[in-house]
């Protein structure tokens, strides 16, 4: 690996200034589980790494009302094992447990996973149905965006060169919503990720949040498939139900699947159809049981 300097800021402002001063020659380092691999292979090279973990307090997981606030240097393992996360959003804990392997989870961070913007990311897909927010700090202050506004392409985000993600804000799903996540793949990273959260009142689907990731460069919500499910009676939504088939078909049509080492477009569209129906059935089986 090409030598680099380590800069260890003591607050967020210093980190943003260091990014600005480096003019593209620096990268933020949190877990390093993706960045260092790219640097080892020579794909990326930086003069300076700015150690986010040297900023006190950024590893905290805390509550703000019904929202769990996950600091930028909180690891996947810390999120997975956090009592607040387990209690209020067990599906997030379940999905974090499925990320990579134990050693990567012990070092890699949720915020770093989002900011590296690798297209095959479970958390980036799941957090779309939680409608998570992101606190972004820059030299002139902090702004908040939605998680869907972060990634703009493969390994590309909307962050300015002198900005850093400091916290991921995950609101608990509204009471009465049931949710499930499916992943599929044979590689180290998932080939497909689908998150489904359904709100049910008086036996009728009142809210539907569906997210699809990994098959395309950027994870996305599937509004046409969501629309099909709203208003459907839950007791009709059994295996093979026409609304489930239609939602799965629309999901596949809107997948924006691209060919990569995980497979071709036809293959991925087929996976989306199959796994969308399965994921919806799993979410419905949790009806009344919350998100876990």
């Amino acid at each position, binding site marked *: 690996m090409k*030598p680099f*300097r*380590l800069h260890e800021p003591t607050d967020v402002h*210093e980190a943003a200034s*260091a990014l600005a001063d480096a003019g593209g020659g620096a990268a933020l380092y949190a877990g390093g589980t993706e960045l260092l691999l790219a640097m080892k292979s020579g794909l990326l090279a930086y003069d300076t*790494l700015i150690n986010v973990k040297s900023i006190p307090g950024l590893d905290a997981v805390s509550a703000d009302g019904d929202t769990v606030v996950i600091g930028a240097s909180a690891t996947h393992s810390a999120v997975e094992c956090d009592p607040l996360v387990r209690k209020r959003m067990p599906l997030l804990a379940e999905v974090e447990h499925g990320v990579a*392997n134990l050693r*990567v989870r012990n*070092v890699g961070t949720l915020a770093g996973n989002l900011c590296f913007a690798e297209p095959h990311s479970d958390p980036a897909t799941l957090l779309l149905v939680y409608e998570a927010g992101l606190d972004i700090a820059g030299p002139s202050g902090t702004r908040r965006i939605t998680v869907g506004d972060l990634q703009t392409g493969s390994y590309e985000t909307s962050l300015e060169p002198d900005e850093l993600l400091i916290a991921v804000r995950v609101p608990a799903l509204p009471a009465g919503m049931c949710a499930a996540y499916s992943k599929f793949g044979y590689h180290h990273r998932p080939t497909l990720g689908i998150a489904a959260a359904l709100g049910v009142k008086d036996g009728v689907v009142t809210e539907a949040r569906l997210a699809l990731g990994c098959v395309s460069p950027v994870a996305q919500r599937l509004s046409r498939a969501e629309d099909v499910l709203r208003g459907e009676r839950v007791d009709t939504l059994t295996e093979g139900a026409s609304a489930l088939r239609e939602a799965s078909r629309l999901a596949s049509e809107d997948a924006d699947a691209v060919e990569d080492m995980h497979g071709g477009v036809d293959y991925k569209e087929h996976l989306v159809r199959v796994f969308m129906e399965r994921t919806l059935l799993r979410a419905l089986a949790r009806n009344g049981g919350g998100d876990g």
Partner: protein
Amino acid sequence: MAEAPDTLAVAFELNGAPVEATVEPQTPLIDMLRERFGLTGTKRSCDVQVCGACTVLLDGAPVSSCTVPAFEARGRAVLTVEGFAADDASSPLVEAFVNNAAFQCGFCTPGMLLAAKSLLDADPAPSEETIKDYMRGNVCRCTGYKKIVEAVQEAAEAGR
């Protein structure tokens, strides 16, 4: 803003003893362990955090030393397979691996032992499912895993 140094002093606890080394920021933990301290029990294999051969415990938690920078050890405790063998409390695990022939070539064994130790420290009586789930990031190309799972189960029983 202070000029960032090109080398870093890394003071940490290595297998129970306080040690210190000077490293460059890009030095991975495995290089410091093998080259500075001569602890060659930690094996480099895939070099991309997938196989688990380079597993060491950092403050008790398994990490891939092939990629974690050496500077991450500052002020923390590192356990390698060498420290493990000298640790009496861990010997049931070593014995169980031997009793069950839970290795053939042995290249994955240091990582397997450390992952298993971390599991048993957290959960002294894990189910078979828990063992498989916890160890699934450690790859063995010889044994087919069954004997490794049995060894961890035997060690758990011996430790009770």
